C-alpha cells in the first residue's frame, strides 16, 4: 500500500549513497541525524536562525533545518564528518584547533561547513554586503576580517569564539593563497 506521508529518496552523503525511507516532513537535518546517523550537524534553533546545522549541498552551504530531506533527493551532501574524509584534517579544521576557534563546540560543525562554503564563494568572486565595489567588472573582493565577519554572520556562537574563528578562516585563506 502506498503511504502518502512517506517517500523513499536517494542521498549521497559524504560520498556514500544512502537510500532512505523518510517522513515527508523530515528535514534534511533530521534525516542526517536520525536516519543516516551523522550527528555532526547540530540543531540549535530549527528555524534557520543560528547556522549550527549548516552543511554543503552540492558544494553550497545551506541550513539543513530549513531543507526538506525530500527536496535534497539525489543531491551531494557534505557534513562536517565528510570535510576531512577518512584521514588528515583540513587546514581549516587544524586552524580551528590551534587558534581555539571554539569552546563548547556545538556551533563548530556549522561554522566549519559555512567557512568551507564561504571560501569557495569568495574564490568564485562572489561579493558580500560589505564589499565596496560590486560592479560586474569590479575587482575580486579581498577577504579581510570585515568580509569574513559579514559572510560568517549566519553562524551564531554563544561562547564568543568569533575572533578566533575569523583568524582561523583568514589563516586558511592565506595558506590557500600561498599554495596557489
Amino acid at each position, binding site marked *: 500500500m502506498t503511504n502518502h*506521508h512517506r517517500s523513499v529518496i536517494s542521498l549521497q552523503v559524504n560520498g556514500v549513497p544512502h537510500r532512505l525511507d523518510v*517522513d515527508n*516532513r*523530515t528535514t534534511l537535518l*533530521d534525516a542526517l*541525524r*536520525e536516519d543516516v*546517523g*551523522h*550527528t*555532526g*550537524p*547540530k*540543531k*540549535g*534553533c*530549527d*528555524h534557520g*536562525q*543560528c547556522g*549550527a546545522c549548516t552543511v554543503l549541498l552540492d558544494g553550497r552551504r545551506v541550513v539543513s533545518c530549513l531543507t526538506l530531506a525530500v527536496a535534497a533527493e539525489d543531491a551531494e551532501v557534505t*557534513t*562536517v*564528518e565528510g*570535510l*576531512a574524509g577518512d584521514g588528515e*584534517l583540513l587546514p581549516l*579544521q587544524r586552524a*580551528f*584547533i*590551534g587558534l*581555539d576557534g*571554539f*569552546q*563548547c*563546540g*556545538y*556551533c*563548530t*560543525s556549522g561554522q*566549519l561547513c559555512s567557512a568551507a562554503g564561504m571560501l569557495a564563494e569568495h574564490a568564485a568572486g562572489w561579493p558580500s554586503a560589505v564589499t565596496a565595489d560590486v560592479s560586474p567588472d569590479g575587482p575580486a573582493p579581498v577577504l579581510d*576580517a570585515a568580509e*569574513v*565577519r*559579514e559572510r*560568517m*554572520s*549566519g*553562524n*551564531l*556562537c*554563544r*561562547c*564568543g*569564539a*568569533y*575572533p*578566533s*574563528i*575569523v583568524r582561523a578562516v583568514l589563516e586558511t585563506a592565506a595558506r590557500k593563497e600561498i599554495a596557489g
Partner: protein
Amino acid sequence: MTNAVGAARPRIEGRAKVTGAALYAADVPVPGLAFGVVVLATVSRGRVRDVGVCAVQGMPGVLGVIDHRNAPRLDPAAGGFFGPDGQLQLLQDEVIPFAGRPVALVVAETLEQARAAAEALPVIYDEEPHDTAFTADHPASRPAVTIFDEPVDVGDVAAELAASRVVVEERYRTPEEHCSAMEPHSATAWWEGEHLEAIDSNQGPFSVARTLATLFSLSPDLVRVRTEHVGGGFGSKGLCGPQLILAAMAARLFGRPVRVTLTRAQVFLATAMRPATDQLIRIGADADGGLRAIHHEAAFEISPLVEYLEGCTELTKTLYAARAIRTRLSAVPLDILPPYSMRGPGAAPGSFALESAMDELAERLGMDPLELRLRNEPVAGPVSGLPFSSRNLVACLREGARRFGWDTRDHRPRTRREGPLLVGTGLAATSFSAGAFPSSATITTEADGTFTVAVGATDLGTGARTALTAIAADALAVGTDRIRLRISDSGLGPAWGAGGSRGTTSWGWAIIEAAEKLRGQGRRGTVTADTTSSLGGLPSLERHAFSAVFTEVTVDPMTGEVRVRRLLGMFAVGRVVNPLMARSQVVGGMIGGLSMALHEEGLRDPVSGRHVNADFAGYHIAAHADVPDIEADFVPDHEPGIPMGVKGAGEIGNVGTAAAIANAVWHATGVRQRSLPIRLDRVLE
C-alpha cells in the same frame, strides 16, 4: 614534564569537535528510542481545564500523552541552592504559574509524529489575571532572601552624602536576558529495573542526579546522569531541567527510552533567564574624588515558585573604599519564568549600574574616570574589613590604560568625529568573587603506568577536560599523556557543578588532594579525596578576581547604530592554567557583555504577559559582524588560599563590559545610557 599548568595547549577534545565526532546529549544513539515533545502553557496565569488527549491519541505513531492527571508524583522537597523549587514540580497539578510552564508531554515513535501530535493537542485554559510588569516600586516588592549578598550598612550614608561636594543619584535598568547556549536542553532517560539512567545536557551531573533522585523518591545510588559534551550552559543548565524530568516520567510510563529535546523557543520560555533589574545608585565624593558614600539599592523580579537572588550589590562591597556603604536588595514576585543565574549573575547588571555611576561622578568632578578609580583603591574589604587575599585591580587598570592609549583621551564628551560618526571611549573596573566548593576526586594507578583520574566535573566549553588533565599531570609529576581523565558522570562522586567561576578551583583542588594521597602511598592502588574539610579550613579573606575593560565605539546619530570598534580587557584571575583557553573564555565573556550592552532584551507583550521574542530573530545575540578583534591579557596574580593559585575566569569577562560600552557611548554622544540594551531608538538623534 611537570609544567603542564601554565602552558598554552589546544583542547584535548579538539579533533572530536572539528570532525563532528563529539557526542552531545541529543546525539547519543540509544536503541528503542521514543521521542517526547513538550507542550507549554500559552497563558500567563490560570488553570488547565482540559487537555484533549483523545484528539491526538490515534495519530500515527503516538504512544501517549502525559499531563497532570497521569504524571508520576514528584517529591515537593526537591530543590537546590535556594530551597524547594516549585519549577521542578512539573505536571503535578492544573495550576499555570507562568506562560511557558509545561502542561503536557506528547510521546511518539518519531520526532515528526510527536511534534505533529503536540501541535495538534488541544489545551483549554481558565485564564486568571496576571501580573508580569516589573517595576522597582511594585506593591509586592519585599526584601530579597539573602543567602549571600546580605544588606549592609557601614558608616552614615545620609551624613556622608550631605557632606559630599558632588553627588550622583541615578537609576539604572537592565532587562530580562536569556543564557541562549547554542545547544538546546536535551535529555534521554530510561529505566533499568529500579535504576534511572539519563543522558542530559547540564552543568553538574552529580547535583542534577541528586535532585532527580529526590523528585522520584529514589535512593541516590539508583540514579545515574551522564553528560559527555555540553553545548554551553551559561547558567541555564545549572538545574535539573524540564527536559530531564519529563523524559524520566515518560520513560517510566511507556517502558522504553525517551528523548526530550526542547525547541529553541522552549529554551527561552521554560528554562531560565536573568531577571530584569532596576537599581538606584547614590554616590557622594569630595572634590578630589575621594568617595564619601555609596548607596546601592537593587530590585529584581522573581517567581513565587522558587526563591532566587540576583546579587547586584556584591561588587559594591569590594571595588572601592568609601566611608559609608549601604546596600539593599528587593525582590518583586511576578507571574514569570523563574529567574536563575546567568553568566556573571548579580555582578553583570550590578556593575553596569555601579560603573556607569562612577563614570557620571568622574564627569561631574571633571576628573579622568581612570584616576577616580585609582584614587579609591581600598586597603582592605570596604565592608568586611578583611584583607584581600590578593588584589591586582590597579595593575589591570594601569596596564590596560597603557595598552589602550588612554592617556591621550580628551575626557570631554562629543569631541571626536569621523565623518558622520561620533567616536568615544570608556572604561569600567570590575571584580568577581573567587573560591571553591567541596568536591571529590578518585585516582587509580593503572598497570600500564597511566593514572585514571575521575571527577564529577563537566566541560561546557570551559576547557575543563584540558585544564584538569594538566592539573592532574603536575600533581602526579607525570606527563599529560599518562593521565586518563573521566568526567561528566554523576557516578564519579560528589562534585560541584560548572558554575560560579568555581569549576576549575573546586575540581582541581580535589584532584591535587587525591594525587598527594596517592603519592603518599607510593603511587599504588586507588585513592579518593574530598575537599570538604580543607575548604572549611580556608581563612576568611576577601577573595576576588579583578579586571579592567576599555572600549572604543562609534555612534551614527542618524541611525542610532552603536558599533564597538575596540575592546580590551586586562584580567587578574590568579594563576592561569591554560592561557589559550583562558583568553578564549574571557574574550567570550566580553562578547557576552557586548551583547548585553547592545542587543539583548527579552520583551513581553503587556496584554498577554507573554515573552514575544523567543527566538534568535527577535532576541538578538552578538553575531560575527557585531564583534571586533578583541584584546585580552592577564596581569600576574596569585590566589594564596587555593591550590595552584587559581581564581577562576568563567564569568568576569561578562562583567564590566556593558558599563564600559555605555560610558563610551556617553563619551561619543554626551548622552547617558542608563537602560540596557543601548537600542537604536535610545541613541537616535
